[in-house]
């Protein structure tokens, strides 16, 4: 007889049922990167007169999504990326859906190449990220040109790509530290 393939039949034998607190804990861990990005979006869209905020926001978001997508995809699911992109579009002044589209592409690239990326050392990952973010910024610029039906200045897009490349190492260090802490807590 075939074993019952449904999850309800599988799960109880494998591990004990989670308590409410554990569930909350797991949920918070999963949502941590998304919450971080959401806070970043709210922070940078506030009228604080931070120089370069318009370019820094997508740079940070792209770097964060790339890191979590290949390193810990459970913390950065496609749905979360989509919602964050949509939120960014709603809060900012990009055409609706553009950021969601581009961030999903970044997420997709990182997600599908994650087994290759994980084996590379940091500098190579950084190089791949540089290519991906440059592509993303150029795509954003191309879409903006398409919607305006006019050639826009490419300098801000390149600036955004450079900022994103520059912001990746510190963010990556921060997130690696966070991951380490989370894993320590998971299995002491």
């Amino acid at each position, binding site marked *: 007889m075939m074993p019952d393939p449904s999850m309800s039949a599988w799960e109880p034998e494998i591990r004990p049922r989670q308590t409410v607190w554990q569930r909350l804990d797991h949920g918070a861990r999963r949502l941590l990167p998304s919450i971080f990005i959401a806070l970043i979006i709210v922070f940078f869209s506030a009228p604080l007169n931070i120089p370069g905020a318009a370019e820094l926001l997508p740079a940070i978001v792209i770097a964060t999504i790339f890191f979590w997508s290949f390193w810990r995809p459970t913390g950065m699911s496609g749905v979360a990326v989509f919602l964050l992109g*949509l939120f960014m579009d709603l809060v900012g002044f990009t055409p609706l859906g553009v950021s969601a589209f581009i961030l999903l592409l970044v997420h997709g690239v990182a997600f599908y190449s994650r087994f290759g990326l994980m084996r590379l050392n940091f500098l190579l990952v950084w190089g791949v990220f540089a290519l991906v973010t440059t592509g993303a910024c150029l795509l954003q610029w191309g879409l903006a040109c398409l919607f305006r039906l006019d050639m826009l200045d490419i300098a801000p897009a390149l600036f955004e790509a450079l900022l994103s490349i520059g912001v990746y190492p510190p963010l990556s260090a921060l997130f690696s530290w966070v991951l380490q802490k989370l894993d320590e807590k998971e299995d002491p």
Partner: protein
Amino acid sequence: MIPVSIQMRQALGKLVLPLLVLLSIGIIIAGQADRKLADQARMTVADGLAPLWGLMTSAQHRVQAINTNLREAGRMASENARLQTENENLRRWYDVAVSLTRENDALKTALHWIPEPTPAFVTGRVVADSGGIYARAVLLVAGTESGVHVGNVALAANGLAGRVTETGARSARILLITDIASRLPVMLDASHATAIMGGDNTPLPRLMYYAQDTRPIEGERVVTSDQAGAFPAGLPIGTVHYLHPGQPVVVPFAQLDHLSLLRVFDFGQALIDPPDAPGHVPLAHPRKTLTLPLKTLLGQG
């Protein structure tokens, strides 16, 4: 948990991403097609986030205020230190001044000094003067009704400005020291040498007719001289400055290009009548002696 097989779940998981990409493309197209709806959605989100943003900006403002306050406090500390040293210095000067005043009083008493009369003065607002025969003159809203007479001396806040040349019932015209018609006897404060300060319609009147052995020194104070009796001695005018070698000018203390208030002093020179000297021929024009008697009690006589 929905009962789905693992294979099914994996297949669905692979489908999610392409579906989401398609959905975002759909949203892009929809947003372009119906901009009003997109803007409405934007505004709803912005409305929801507005209190959060307000909180953040107020926090930022508070941080900035604290920062400026701290910087201000640091500046004030250094300013305070500077003021304290200056105050110490000034206190010493105060003692010197008090002792000098006492000494002065004692000397004056010893000499049976006749005290000078306190000059009466009126203060008036300066109004622009477009008419008149002078290029550099101002009109003062104070006239003979207020006791202003021709020949009175007009002082700005910190120096001589000019003298009254014409008076009306409620206004008086004041010829500034920078006018080309203005020639004043002055004294160089350091050397006590006399000279003539002549205006030339520029902001810096020239110094002329100084003695060749006592040339004006750069930065020297220039005060009025009581020669010819038009002015009491010692009213501050300005400082010497050399525009070119051999061309000394006076930088007036008074800001003559934007005067707002002037004090007009009546030093009572007109009341001083020289005693008749038989055989003395007055040097000045007889009509002018009526308005500007050219002798003072302390003058050369």
